[in-house]
């Protein structure tokens, strides 16, 4: 897979015997220890490792929760309270899982925005990027179904609103909705299947992560200059140089994570989810979990009909489109220069894109009839939604044609050590 040869020499007769039958040690040495890694990777590159750790954290705590949780509408809410109050250490394990979902999403957003700035989606890393977007979609499905399991008011109404999105599909919408719910409304059948799928999907994610890393190890890492690796002087072995850097970042990441778990496990949640689900009354202000807010704002922004497409279907098309567009970024961005550092115009549009995304999240959390900075939430959301799409469909294609990039360093080594003459 990798372009360099294995340097593994079996140290004992047993290792030699194993190596001839199943070369796992050889494989691990090539891919986990010796893998040549650009020596200029900065801390934005540690989030991949952080994400891997978070997936393991969610799977371990999740399997434990499933030992005590009951997926039945009459008992689910109480069983989560039972975990928090009665199960030994359950208070912490449940909080790690609930806060862990937020930390996981924080890390994935950093990871995605890193890729968008440094052009990590450009050739030859398109498949790597597409697999990443697929993981993001699977994570959203997993977290959504997990959030339904405690069967509080927010759980129930999130399930109702999100499954209703499918009802917007012309012709087959209602049959699909009933198929997903297993009834006319969200009920016990829905809760049971969501539990089943919430257990399954993380393992599907783990499988796609394997493909993601495989696709990474064919071309190797991108790096902050975006310049290809030219010689072995540009790289260092993954271990110990990057295992240590990743480990340090993971430990730093654990500090806010632990703070939330120990001191504010409910800060990122919503008080209404401590009221048991009631299909007759919707809470006055329903909001999704913070990590869905930007996309939720886009869904809500379309409150007008577009030709023959009604407002509901329109909202759903923009909502789905805002995620699906990520799959096409490698072909929408026409610039040959990967790293934003060397793109003087791109930099500003990118910064505006980040601000716009945060604004969308803020708007998604605001009540539908409120005002923000003197504009109604409805109008403000329309402006931000417009920029979100313009960035992908106009800015990225056009900039590549009109922008003059700054001169690129001749190699990674040169960018780290200065001009060859000075480095001598």
């Amino acid at each position, binding site marked *: 897979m990798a372009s360099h040869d294995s340097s593994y020499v079996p140290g004992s007769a047993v290792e030699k015997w194993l190596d001839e039958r199943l070369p796992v040690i050889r494989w691990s040495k090539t891919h986990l220890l010796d893998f040549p890694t650009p020596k200029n990777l900065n801390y934005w590159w540690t989030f991949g490792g952080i994400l891997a750790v978070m997936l393991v954290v969610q799977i371990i705590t999740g399997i434990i929760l499933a030992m005590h949780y009951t997926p039945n509408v009459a008992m689910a809410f109480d069983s989560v309270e039972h975990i928090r109050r009665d199960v030994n250490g359950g208070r912490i394990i449940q909080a790690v899982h609930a806060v862990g979902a937020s930390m996981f999403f924080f890390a994935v957003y950093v990871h995605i925005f890193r890729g968008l700035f440094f052009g990590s989606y450009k050739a030859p890393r398109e498949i790597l990027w597409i697999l990443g977007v697929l993981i993001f979609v699977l994570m959203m499905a997993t977290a959504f179904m997990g959030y339904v399991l405690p069967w509080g008011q927010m759980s129930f*109404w999130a399930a*109702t*609103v*999100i*499954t*209703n*999105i499918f*009802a917007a599909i012309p012709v087959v919408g209602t049959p699909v909705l*009933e*198929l*997903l*719910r*297993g*009834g*006319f*409304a969200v*009920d016990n*059948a829905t809760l049971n*299947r969501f539990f089943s799928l919430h257990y399954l999907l993380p393992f599907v994610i783990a499988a796609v992560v394997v493909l993601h890393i495989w696709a990474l190890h064919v071309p190797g890492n991108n790096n902050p200059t975006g310049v290809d690796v030219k010689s072995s002087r540009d790289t260092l072995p993954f271990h110990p140089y990057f295992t240590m850097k990743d480990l340090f970042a993971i430990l730093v990441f654990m500090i806010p994570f632990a703070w939330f778990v120990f001191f504010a496990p409910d800060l990122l949640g919503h008080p209404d989810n401590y009221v048991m689900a009631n*299909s*007759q*009354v*919707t*809470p*006055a*202000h*329903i909001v999704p979990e913070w990590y869905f807010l930007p996309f939720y704002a886009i869904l*809500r922004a*379309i*409150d007008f*009909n577009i030709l023959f497409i*009604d*407002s*509901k*279907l329109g*909202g759903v098309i923009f909502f789905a489109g805002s995620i699906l567009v990520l799959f096409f970024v490698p072909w929408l961005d026409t610039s040959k220069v990967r790293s934003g550092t060397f793109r003087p115009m791109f930099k500003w549009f990118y910064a505006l894109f980040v601000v716009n995304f945060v604004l969308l999240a803020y708007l998604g959390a605001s*009540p*539908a*009839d409120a005002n923000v900075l003197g504009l109604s939430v*409805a109008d403000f959301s329309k402006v931000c939604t417009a920029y979100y799409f313009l960035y992908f469909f106009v800015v990225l294609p056009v900039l590549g044609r009109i922008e003059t990039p700054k001169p690129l360093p001749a190699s990674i080594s040169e960018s780290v050590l200065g001009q060859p003459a000075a480095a001598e």
Partner: protein
Amino acid sequence: MATETKAHEGAPDTGRRDFLYVAAGAVGAVGVAGAAWPLINQMNPDASVLALASIEFDLASIEEGQSVTIKWRGLPVFVRHRTGAEIDEAKAVPLTDLKDPESDEQRTKPGHEQWLIMIANCTHLGCVPVGESGDFDGWFCPCHGSHYDSAGRIRKGPAPKNLVLPPYTFISDTKVQIG
């Protein structure tokens, strides 16, 4: 393909072989689809859910200006005893003002205009709107800000349709059967 057959002199007729190959593939695909369908169909509403399809409800205890929410097929249903003012207001609206044009008569049963019976899920994404609020003296959906009037018709906001009327009949002056 063609060059390959030449190499195998006296090989069986490739047209026939291709036919068998495609036919076997097609039968296999139908078989797989047939086996997959029950695995998907099990997710559809089951017999116990379908069994709750019809209910009877007594209106006698609901005063004018009052509403109740009842449950039908797991869905919340609004039953509102409308005031004269609400009925007049709904009738006065020209149909051209409506996103989903329906007259007040189409929303109620003749002779029982005071009763408005509707599935309580907002036609946008299914939240339950709040009664006696919004800009049109009807319902307001807090989720994404849809306003319904006193006949449950959509007037403002992202919802595309009026609140849905369940199938129902008056079996006496004060009793309805829903479903």
